[in-house]
């Protein structure tokens, strides 16, 4: 409730004061928000803000003052590396030092103490967002922000601080610093989006999460269909939590007149793993694409590698191999971004390998379609691809949610033991913490979610479509949505936060 009252207070002040000060209110409230989590953590936010601001302006000044092209380039490069090292180094130290130390210990039979740093809220998100900005300045996409306070808002804007989306300066800056007049429709849309987000989180995610926690937390007790069911539940939980969380975040931003980048686009309708990463955690994918994938793929050494593979494997295949390699590298980073554990690396590698495989087998697939007379534009094939992708994604969840890499493999093996569909009807699913009624609510909620997803996939803006309906219809819809939260929402015993807020 604190959060809602906070947003209310911020919005109130935001629209009362003269519009040219609005961004300052956002900055102040963002810092209050972050400080409320722990005053000491502000140090880290300030560290990233100041170092990024400083190195970006330094690069700009080199652009102006240094005339020799070569010297300019190498100077800028050194400043960029400094900025990247400071910030990714900080992130690495806080997030990955324990992982590094414990692996070093087991490899070399040592016993160095773990450092156990507390992870500042949102550090993975704001670090990546800031480094994207620095790289953009280095590439000359835009000039560095001169006003340190304005820049501070870009780093700390509270709705996106905890779980993204990872924003771009050129899309956000002008929005932050424009004047926003109070627009009731826009505020209403924002509130509606927030309610929809809470629906997904409270009705679907928190409920499905009960099963996930029970089975994955006590994985040696379960096998067969129960494990498979738990993985499916995780599909529901993770989507409801993260996408629902995003709806709340984007809805809040909308109230202030800020449009953040979309992070989800009906990901379970994906037709391939590649497509999945264009629909799931979109801003992480595009960040990786713009700042890792293309730079790697266009780099000199990758160029040389490409020439080499073209020579050995011929033009067709040879062209694909560097891309496949780049994808694997990118997804290893995606994996490690999620956390400091081998299972996350495996998660990344699994995704990268599947994409790389798809890249490499593309011509083989095309040939297979011809031979087997498969019409790859048909609805049936489209459905097959969706289901196949969904299956592959669910397999990837084993690496994401299991407590360790070993546990994920154990659980995969366990899934095949005693697998029977009878588990669905013999009542064993009712011993995991949810009653029959909960499953009915989940089914109903998923049906609603599915319907909304289909509508959105067709490109319809639901809020605007609703706006055009008569008041009675609109009001019924809004009331139903709002009341579904207390009526059908799951009630946690002992508080629950959003999953991605811990990254």
């Amino acid at each position, binding site marked *: 409730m604190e959060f809602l009252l906070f947003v209310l207070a911020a919005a109130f002040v935001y629209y009362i004061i003269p519009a040219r000060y609005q961004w300052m209110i956002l900055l102040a409230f963002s810092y209050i928000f972050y400080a409320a989590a722990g005053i000491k953590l502000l140090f880290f936010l300030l560290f990233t803000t100041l170092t990024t601001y400083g190195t970006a302006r330094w690069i700009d000044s080199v652009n102006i003052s240094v005339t020799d092209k070569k010297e300019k380039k190498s100077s800028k490069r050194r400043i960029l590396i400094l900025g990247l090292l400071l910030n990714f180094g900080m992130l690495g130290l806080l997030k990955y030092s324990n992982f590094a130390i414990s692996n070093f210990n087991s490899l070399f039979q040592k016993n160095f103490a773990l450092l156990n740093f507390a992870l500042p809220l949102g550090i993975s998100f704001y670090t990546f967002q800031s480094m994207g900005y620095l790289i953009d300045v280095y*590439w*000359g*996409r835009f000039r560095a922000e001169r006003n340190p306070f304005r820049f501070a808002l870009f780093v700390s804007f509270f709705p996106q601080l905890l779980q993204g989306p990872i924003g771009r300066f050129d899309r956000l800056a002008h929005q932050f610093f424009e004047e926003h007049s109070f627009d009731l429709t826009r505020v209403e849309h924002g509130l509606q989006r927030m309610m929809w987000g809470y629906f997904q989180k409270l009705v679907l995610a928190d409920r499905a999460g009960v099963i996930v926690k029970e089975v994955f937390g006590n994985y040696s007790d379960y096998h067969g269909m129960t494990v498979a069911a738990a993985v499916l539940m995780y599909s529901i939980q993770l989507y409801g939590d993260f996408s629902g969380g995003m709806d709340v975040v984007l809805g809040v931003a909308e109230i202030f007149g800020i449009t953040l980048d979309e992070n989800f686009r009906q990901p379970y309708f994906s037709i391939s793993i*590649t497509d999945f990463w264009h629909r799931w955690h979109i801003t992480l994918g595009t960040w990786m*694409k*713009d*700042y890792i*994938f*293309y*730079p790697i*793929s*266009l780099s000199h050494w990758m160029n040389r590698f*490409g020439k080499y593979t073209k020579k050995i494997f011929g033009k067709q295949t040879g*062209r*694909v191999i560097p*891309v496949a390699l780049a994808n694997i590298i990118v997804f290893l980073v995606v994996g490690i971004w999620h956390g400091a554990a081998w299972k996350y690396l495996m998660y990344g590698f699994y995704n990268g390998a599947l994409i790389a495989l798809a*890249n490499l087998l593309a011509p083989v697939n095309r040939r297979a379609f011809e031979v087997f007379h498969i019409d790859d534009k048909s609805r049936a094939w489209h459905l097959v691809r969706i289901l196949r992708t969904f299956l592959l994604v669910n397999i990837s969840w084993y690496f994401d949610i299991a407590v360790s890499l070993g546990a994920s493999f154990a659980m995969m093996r366990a899934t095949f033991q005693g697998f029977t569909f009878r588990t669905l009807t013999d009542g064993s699913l009712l011993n995991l913490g949810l009653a029959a009624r909960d499953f009915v609510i989940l089914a109903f909620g998923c049906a609603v979610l599915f319907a909304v997803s289909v509508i959105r996939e067709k490109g319809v803006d639901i809020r605007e479509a609703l706006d055009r309906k008569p008041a009675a219809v609109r009001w019924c819809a809004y009331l139903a949505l709002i009341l579904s939260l207390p009526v059908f929402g799951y009630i946690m015993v002992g508080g629950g936060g959003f999953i991605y807020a811990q990254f």
Partner: protein
Amino acid sequence: MDKILDILEEIKSGVDFKNEKGLIDNDILDSFDILSIVGELEDAFDIEITPVDIVPSNFNSAESLWAMVQRLMEA
């Protein structure tokens, strides 16, 4: 300009490159296509394309690609 069209058609068939203005915005080209195009353009025109250049405003149409190539040739 014709060279551009040739390269595009070789990398992806069945697209009206003469008239299409939303190659990126309409998800017609994926990142693999883009890299292939970059490779071909670099070879054909002896230019260096960097990540900064990979933006929709350059890649959305054959014309904008040609404009980018000309810019890079002059640089």
